[in-house]
């Protein structure tokens, strides 16, 4: 399936925003003008106060009635939407808030100015927060404020919208969306909003392709223009030529056929027959992999190999270059979790004057060893990752760990980076989870100590196998010795998982083994929490999990681990049929 960024054809105008809910649609535009112009510093005569208060109470009641009406239309199982609308209702009925507005009116502010003044005060508190999730709540307050003003100034309502349009607006409220859904809209583009905005949450729960935060969209696009909305990449094309239309029509068809081929399984969670859920994640190198992972139903990204950026550029990218890349991934998959692994570079993966030629790169100066020795490079990356964590869907992972000391040193660097970012006013997730790769025998053997100071483990079975079996994975003469199913490997994995679970942290497997159907039952039986693999393998592994019985598998694994002959395990795996 080809989802690459390369397009053919031309267009009148192209815009870029943040993809809030994935999908591609082609349809006519309909611009929703919700902007209103009014004087925010208008004063009234004392004799008008009573009348002005009456206007406020009327508008408030109208909005409450309208919301209640909307709530009745919402399907009872749309819990996200109901929760959001109920919160809006509570805001409208907030007694303290109405009292403040009425007080402003009593002080001779017009009803519009009183409302704007009170909303501004509250938005000011949110604006000063360093937390991105709170900042995005400003949009919610904006929507309610606008509704008040609309009612008071009798502006356009959602009535005459042709069906199957793409809606383009400055902003939309959840109750607007409910009305628009009745008009069978096929997607929307907003100038405002972010990925955690209520409107974006709703777009995702209705599978409605949407792009938010698109500057000037409602001003640059006219009514009834042809629009291609590509909410995989955040791109919008206005009045495309026939080539571009064909290109996207082809893409839509490809995605449809692909999804049909995947069948129903794509929407199912990966649960064993007796109800144990395994989270299936995607491993990605590039942004195209990210889109593929979403399409294949990944529940998150278990491994983003950030060194692909180093390899692509032939140098270490700057903090900003990295931030742009990480942010794009995090926004695209939100609310799914993204696991960003620090650069795993060594002389085999990246050659530069920075890294000396080594006779044995796999056992060399690489991963965390290199990063700690070059704090200017490492801190650039940590700052970029922290900045991209502002929506709280980022986990940070360290490669090639062999000691507690390496983790503690990294923690100190993270604290330094947080202080530097805070001083510059950047927001980040203060509680961003940090985990380590378990890919050296040393890390596995000290997994008890490590699991007390990190938030998660991810077992890299490829490197772990080569280090435990003393078999270079690139040496073809050794291929018969390079065996993921060796009892030594299985015992070490089991040991690591037990230590992690004792200290209540989750364990993922992100190496080849995670995507190997023969290994699935071993790993499920060993109590792995998450499996992360190339997106193309996700469905095969899910199919396997759906067919397993966890309890039987667990007993089988306990038997297998005790086996001391490599061949035995293979026979066990092959002949074992439940």
């Amino acid at each position, binding site marked *: 399936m080809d989802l690459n960024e390369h397009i053919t054809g031309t267009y009148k105008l192209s815009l870029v925003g943040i993809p809030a809910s994935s999908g591609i649609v082609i349809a006519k535009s309909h611009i929703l003008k919700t902007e209103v112009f009014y004087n925010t510093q208008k004063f009234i005569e004392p004799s008008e106060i009573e009348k002005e208060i009456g206007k406020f109470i009327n508008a408030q009641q109208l909005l409450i009635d309208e919301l209640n009406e909307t709530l009745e239309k919402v399907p009872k199982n749309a819990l996200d939407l109901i*929760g*959001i609308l*109920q*919160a809006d209702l*509570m*805001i409208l009925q*907030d*007694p*303290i*808030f109405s009292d403040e507005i009425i007080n402003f009116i009593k002080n001779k502010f017009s009803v519009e100015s009183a409302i704007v003044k009170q909303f501004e005060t*509250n*938005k000011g*508190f*949110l604006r*000063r*927060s*360093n*937390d991105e*999730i*709170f900042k995005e*709540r400003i949009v*919610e*307050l904006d929507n309610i404020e606008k509704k008040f003003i609309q009612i008071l100034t009798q502006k356009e309502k959602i009535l005459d919208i042709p069906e199957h349009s793409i809606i383009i607006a400055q902003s939309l409220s959840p109750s607007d969306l409910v009305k628009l859904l009745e008009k069978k809209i096929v997607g929307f583009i907003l100038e405002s909003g972010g990925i955690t905005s*209520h409107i974006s949450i709703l777009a995702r729960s209705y599978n409605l392709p949407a792009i938010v935060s698109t500057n000037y969209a409602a001003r640059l696009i006219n009514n009834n223009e042809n629009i291609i909305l590509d909410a995989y990449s955040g791109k919008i094309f206005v009045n495309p030529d026939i080539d571009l239309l064909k290109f996207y029509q082809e893409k839509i068809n490809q995605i449809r056929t692909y999804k049909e081929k995947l069948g129903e399984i794509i929407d199912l969670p990966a649960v064993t027959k007796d109800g144990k859920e395994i989270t299936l994640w995607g491993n990605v190198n590039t942004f195209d992999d990210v889109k593929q992972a979403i399409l294949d139903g990944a529940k998150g990204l278990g491994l983003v190999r950030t060194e692909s950026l180093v390899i692509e550029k032939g140098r270490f990218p700057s903090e900003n270059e990295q931030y742009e890349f990480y942010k794009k991934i995090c926004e695209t998959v939100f609310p799914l979790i993204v696991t960003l692994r620090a650069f795993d570079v060594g002389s085999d993966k990246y050659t530069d004057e920075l890294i000396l030629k080594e006779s044995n790169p796999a056992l060399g100066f690489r991963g965390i060893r290199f990063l700690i020795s070059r704090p200017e490079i490492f801190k650039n990356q940590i700052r970029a990752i922290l900045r991209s964590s502002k929506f*709280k869907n980022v986990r940070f992972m360290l490669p090639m760990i062999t000691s507690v000391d390496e983790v503690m040193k990294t923690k100190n660097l993270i604290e330094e980076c947080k202080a530097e970012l805070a001083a510059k006013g950047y927001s980040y997730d*203060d*509680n961003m989870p940090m985990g380590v790769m378990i890919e050296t025998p040393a890390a596995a053997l000290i997994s008890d100590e490590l699991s007390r100071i990190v938030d998660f483990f991810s077992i890299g079975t490829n490197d772990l196998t080569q280090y435990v079996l003393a078999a270079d994975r690139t040496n073809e003469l050794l291929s018969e010795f390079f065996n993921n199913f060796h009892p030594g490997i299985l015992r070490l994995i089991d040991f690591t998982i037990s230590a992690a679970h004792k200290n209540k942290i989750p364990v993922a497997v992100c190496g080849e083994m995670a995507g190997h159907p023969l290994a699935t039952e071993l790993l499920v039986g060993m109590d792995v929490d998450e499996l992360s693999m190339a997106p193309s393998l996700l469905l095969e592994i899910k199919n396997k999990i759906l067919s397993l019985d966890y309890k039987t598998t667990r007993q089988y694994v306990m038997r297998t681990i005790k086996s001391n002959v490599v061949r035995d395990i293979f026979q066990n795996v092959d002949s074992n049929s439940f």
Partner: protein
Amino acid sequence: MFEQEVEIKNRAGMHTRPASMIVKVAAKFKSEVYIEKEGINVNAKSIIGVMTLAASKGTKLTIKAEGNDEQDAVNAICELINDGFGEPL
């Protein structure tokens, strides 16, 4: 007047849904209930007030109440916050 300190435990902080839960609980009591963050006091019966405190994970708050059922009111709200509003911690 009865008061108690609590710390926000859930990852996402006291955003819209938790704020609405606090208001619903506070409304059950006759006492005046306030939440203080860094010297700013908001009425716990006002969802906009509670939301705009922008209390993220780790924020320390003081819950205060005045009235016949002040102790119960403070305890009920502290319990909600300590439970992380039923969200991931």
